[in-house]
């Protein structure tokens, strides 16, 4: 690979606390050779490829901590190739994949398969998760140590909670010794049984069983009190309610160490968007009230929430064109994660560097991976943005194999122009 120099960029990298006009030089090995306002065009070798990006914004490639790839078992919903295309078009260069495939990723041979398959088919950094319990049944824990050694980044039962308190305490106790990341879906399964949307006026009107905010809060409270006994790397996958934030705040100020994520959907939509049974907005965690959405934004501002995820869940038509209660949960979102997050900047909800931080260096730190940064010698995973470009989301134009976007026809401002992976231009619009 030839050396490259990207010139005239606004470089925004929260990992180095920089927001300045400058240049980026990428060496032949695909690493950042030099970056910033002090990097001169003359620093690059004569033979380097020059790309002038006048006025555009460069950020580290986005790290998405929660996405579902249909392989194996659900190739008709999404495969590595389509997921890659969608991710790169959205400036995402690192993806944490969920283990609820078929079969479930809960043993070493499955890990080998998924890593091999990902290496062959996906042109994006993949970080597979394994399940916390075998077959996601919430009974027996998986082989954390062996799985970690084979390349598993973290453990999650995806949208199932470890309901059994004794098991959860053992999971944490065991995990603390192995330094593995436990990612919990916080929703009491007894309380949320058969429910599909937020408990409140909308649920009452639509005649649907609601999920109370207490279902989320009670698991967070339980886990955090277990965590003070068994301090392990603990991450709450995504929270949805205002009340959960007050628990998080209290525990953080007491010095309990853990991290929290939120889905971009919960930051951009609320329960009223469900309208008359729009199943594409049936999500887990559920969309809640506007005041919950606003407080989640506050939570990011106050560093109570560390990560914004796409919660990318591709579903085919058949799984969605059903009565609401029977329809599958989830929406695609990896391609629109960054543009939709930029909406929060354009409408003055959040400062730009905070949004980028939650999409890059913060998840990288939680995962302990050397991504989400444009520091010297880091892999040159770069996303080039036109911050102002207006566009309208159309499901047919999205790259995912499934078209279940929750934000069809949404007018967005800000689009990914180019994505570099290890210094190579892998997407350009």
């Amino acid at each position: 690979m030839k050396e490259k120099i990207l010139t005239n960029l606004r470089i925004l990298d929260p990992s180095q606390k920089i927001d300045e006009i400058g240049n980026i030089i990428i060496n032949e090995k695909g690493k950042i050779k030099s970056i910033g306002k002090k990097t001169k065009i003359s620093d690059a070798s004569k033979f380097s490829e020059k790309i002038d990006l006048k006025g555009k914004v460069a950020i580290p490639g986005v790290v998405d901590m929660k996405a579902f790839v249909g392989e194996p078992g659900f190739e008709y919903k999404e495969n590595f190739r389509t997921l890659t295309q969608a991710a790169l078009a959205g400036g995402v260069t690192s993806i944490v994949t969920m283990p609820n495939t078929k079969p479930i990723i809960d043993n070493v041979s499955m890990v080998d398969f998924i890593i091999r398959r990902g290496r062959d088919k996906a042109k994006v950094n993949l970080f597979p998760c394994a399940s916390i319990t075998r077959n996601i049944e919430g009974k027996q824990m998986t082989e954390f140590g062996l799985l970690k050694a084979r390349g598993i980044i973290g453990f999650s039962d995806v949208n199932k909670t470890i309901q059994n308190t004794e098991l959860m305490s053992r999971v944490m106790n065991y995990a603390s010794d192995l330094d593995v990341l436990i990612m919990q879906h916080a929703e009491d399964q007894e309380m949320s049984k058969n429910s599909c949307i937020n408990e409140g006026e909308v649920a009452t009107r639509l005649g649907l069983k609601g999920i109370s905010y207490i279902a989320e809060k009670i698991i967070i409270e339980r886990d955090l009190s277990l965590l003070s006994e068994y301090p392990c790397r603990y991450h709450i996958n995504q929270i949805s309610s205002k009340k959960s934030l007050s628990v998080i705040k209290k525990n953080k100020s007491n010095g309990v160490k853990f991290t929290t994520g939120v889905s971009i959907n919960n930051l951009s939509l609320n329960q009223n968007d469900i309208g008359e049974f729009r199943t594409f907005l049936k999500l887990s965690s559920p969309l809640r009230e506007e005041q919950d959405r606003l407080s989640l934004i506050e939570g990011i501002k106050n560093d109570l929430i560390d990560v914004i995820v796409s919660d990318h869940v591709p579903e085919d038509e058949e799984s969605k064109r059903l009565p609401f209660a029977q329809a599958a949960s989830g929406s695609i979102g990896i391609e629109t994660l960054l543009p939709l997050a930029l909406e929060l900047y354009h409408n003055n909800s959040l400062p730009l560097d905070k949004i980028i931080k939650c999409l890059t260096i913060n998840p990288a730190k939680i995962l302990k991976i050397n991504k989400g940064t444009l520091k010297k010698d880091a892999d040159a995973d770069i996303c080039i943005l036109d911050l102002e470009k207006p566009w309208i989301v159309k499901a047919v134009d999205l790259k995912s194999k499934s078209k279940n976007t929750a934000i069809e026809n949404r007018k967005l401002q800000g689009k990914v122009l180019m994505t570099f992976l290890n210094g190579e231009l892998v997407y350009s619009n």
Partner: protein
Amino acid sequence: MAIIKNFSAVKKIPKHLLGIQNLSIKEANLILSEAKNFIRLNRSTSKKLDLLRGKTQINLFFEPSTRTQSSFELAGKRLGADVMTMNVGNSSLKKGETILDTAMTLNAMHPDIIVVRHQDSGAPNLLSQKVNCSVINAGDGLREHPTQALLDALTIINRKGKIEGLKIAICGDILHSRVARSNIYLMNMLGAEVNVISPKTLMPVSIEKLGAKAFTDMKKGLDGCDIVMMLRLQNERMQGSFLPSKREYYEFFGLSPEKLKYAKKDALIMHPGPMNRGVEIDTKLADDINVSLVKEQVELGVAVRMACLKLYCK
């Protein structure tokens, strides 16, 4: 016949009857005034009309029903339609067919109207997007049962002359009741004040936003009420998680002659049926023709459904 002709110039009505929520006050009044004319017809010796001759009505029942299904069937037949009733609950669905597959199959038979009942809220809405004919919701999940509310309204108007200004109490399992929801919307729309009375575990969140005052005490909730609507308490609700026992429920929420005294002197009782005698309502009270409108509700149900079929069948 002469009276009916006056109303035969059908005013504009939406294509489907999915819920009271989607209905305007004009449309509700149109259905009610049409229905009034059918009351007399239904009481006469010759009950058959040919308003819907040549039309095909399909009753698609995914959930078992006795009175609603027979009421719709009779209504269609009295208007001269070809009525077919399908109980899907135990056939196609078990073979893995989805509601939309069923809808497409039926649609190919060119029905003029489909009457649907389904255990999932919103199923008729989904169906209505896929078929070419009108869809009437005969009850979906916990969401709406519009024709029940309309027949309740007609029954009240028939006895009390009007709905405006009345105070109506709905008592029982509000949480799982589509009848309660449809009635809250309709009675509010027609100018009544609505109280709902139920144990806390059977009271939906934010019910007051639908237009009802919530009570957990029969004495307070029934105070000054003209109409007392009792709801059926399903047996499975009594197995521990919502309520401790039938006995306790009847003690606090069952309608007895003593509790009825909290309401107005001339208060009348309604029930969508089927009743659990001795659980939500005292058995003598249920049969007392001076206060109970239960039989009238069933009778006028046919008239209301005839009106709906006539207006929506195009």
